[in-house]
């Protein structure tokens, strides 16, 4: 999926000023890629929910807390919306078995986890059917340009052009607690270029790659969970 807003550099300063005044910021150029792998049929019954957890930072995962919040809020809205069990409530109810040090590393570890006293009961009480493990992050892959701003008694302004590229790469592994195995995986990769050209007034043209990844991943997750699929 590709969504590019072309920027014309050869437009006059007056036109640029008009654009700057009429828009707070424009969307930068982004390329989004969503992939899904499904291993088994899915679906949620009434009263069932999913919990969305961040994979352990003990294993080097650096998923931003804000991204998890975004996914959680987005999957609970719109068509095919799914019920999400609160992450902190889930982790506290099963303390300390879902702490970064102790959380299961793969669906194969679920039977061992269930053997701990009270764990299977708490999971059943929660109504959580799927655990969704989110990994990945957003990184700045390149940047350049220069932007200078100055202020003086008579006014101020900026001149120049700064740009940067962000890569947002996230994946969500879905474990089916009932079956004790992986139901599949969904991933989203978004590459975007942001630019701030400035002739007196800076005009930020921002590629919000993380927001696009959140929207893409959440949308695909909703379909993955609610659509039982051809399997």
């Amino acid at each position: 999926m590709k969504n590019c807003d072309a920027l014309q550099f050869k437009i006059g300063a007056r036109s640029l000023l008009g654009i700057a005044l009429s828009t707070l910021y424009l969307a930068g150029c982004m390329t989004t890629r969503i992939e899904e792998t499904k291993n088994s049929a899915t679906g949620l019954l009434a009263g069932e929910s999913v919990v969305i957890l961040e994979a352990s930072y003990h294993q080097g995962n650096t998923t931003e807390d804000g991204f998890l919040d975004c996914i959680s809020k987005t999957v609970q809205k719109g068509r095919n919306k799914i019920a999400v069990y609160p992450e902190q409530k889930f982790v506290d109810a099963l303390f300390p078995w879902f702490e970064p040090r102790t959380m299961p590393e793969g669906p194969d570890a679920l039977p061992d986890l269930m053997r701990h006293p009270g764990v299977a009961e708490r999971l059943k009480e929660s109504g959580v059917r799927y655990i969704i493990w989110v990994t990945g992050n957003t990184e700045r892959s390149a940047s350049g340009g220069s932007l200078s701003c100055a202020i003086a008694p008579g006014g101020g302004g900026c001149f120049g052009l700064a740009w940067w590229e962000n890569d947002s790469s996230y994946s969500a592994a879905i474990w089916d607690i009932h079956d004790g195995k992986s139901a599949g995986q969904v991933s989203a990769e978004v590459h975007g270029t942001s630019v701030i050209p400035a002739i007196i007034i800076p005009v930020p043209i921002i590629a919000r790659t993380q927001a696009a990844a959140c929207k893409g991943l959440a949308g695909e997750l909703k379909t993955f969970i609610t659509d039982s699929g051809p399997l």
Partner: protein
Amino acid sequence: MQTRWASPRDVIRSNEYKLVKRTDISRPTLWLLAAAALGSACSKSVEVKVDFPEPLVAPLALKVGLRYGDSINNYSYHEELPVDGNWSFELGATNARLFDKIFSALFEEVVYVDATGGTGEPYSSLDAIIEPTIEAFEFSLPRQSRSDQYSVWIRYNLRVYGPDGNLITNWPVSAYGQADSRLFGAKEAMAEATINAMRDAVASIVTGFGKEPKIKEALLTENEDEEL
């Protein structure tokens, strides 16, 4: 549709400093502004007050005495960083609450004791006495780690004694926690990282107690160490 950007250097080379002019802000005003900015950045006090959830674990058939020293009852840490100002951590009795939660879940019965062993009650009815301490506390800021994370390391030491006061083992427990700087302010993120480190200590102790060789040998039967 693909966009090819003009080289920014070409645009900037001749014009970069054209708009930079000298401002008329007076020198005393600048000093005042700088002092205000420095004052707000110089000192950060992190207060950690939290209740931990009950650990989900089957209790071992042991009666254990707990002895908390000052580092557990009222811990504070202070460090002056050359660039990042003064950081102080007030953990108060949070560690005592943490160990209360761990040990009351981990053992069938716990009592508080004044010494690390003795004769007569309550020592004669105890299986062991545990004295936790904090040996080291470290933290790092996003600027230092070149990441978006505030991080905290706490090294606890659990001294485990027999009821007669003989040391069974010194068990060091390293705990780590981090928190995202983008979701919280600096103080709040550091407090969150500290809480996460303390929760990590619980995870270490609950999963590691039965595996620590000297504890296993002195206190646990074969079935009990497999339960943890």
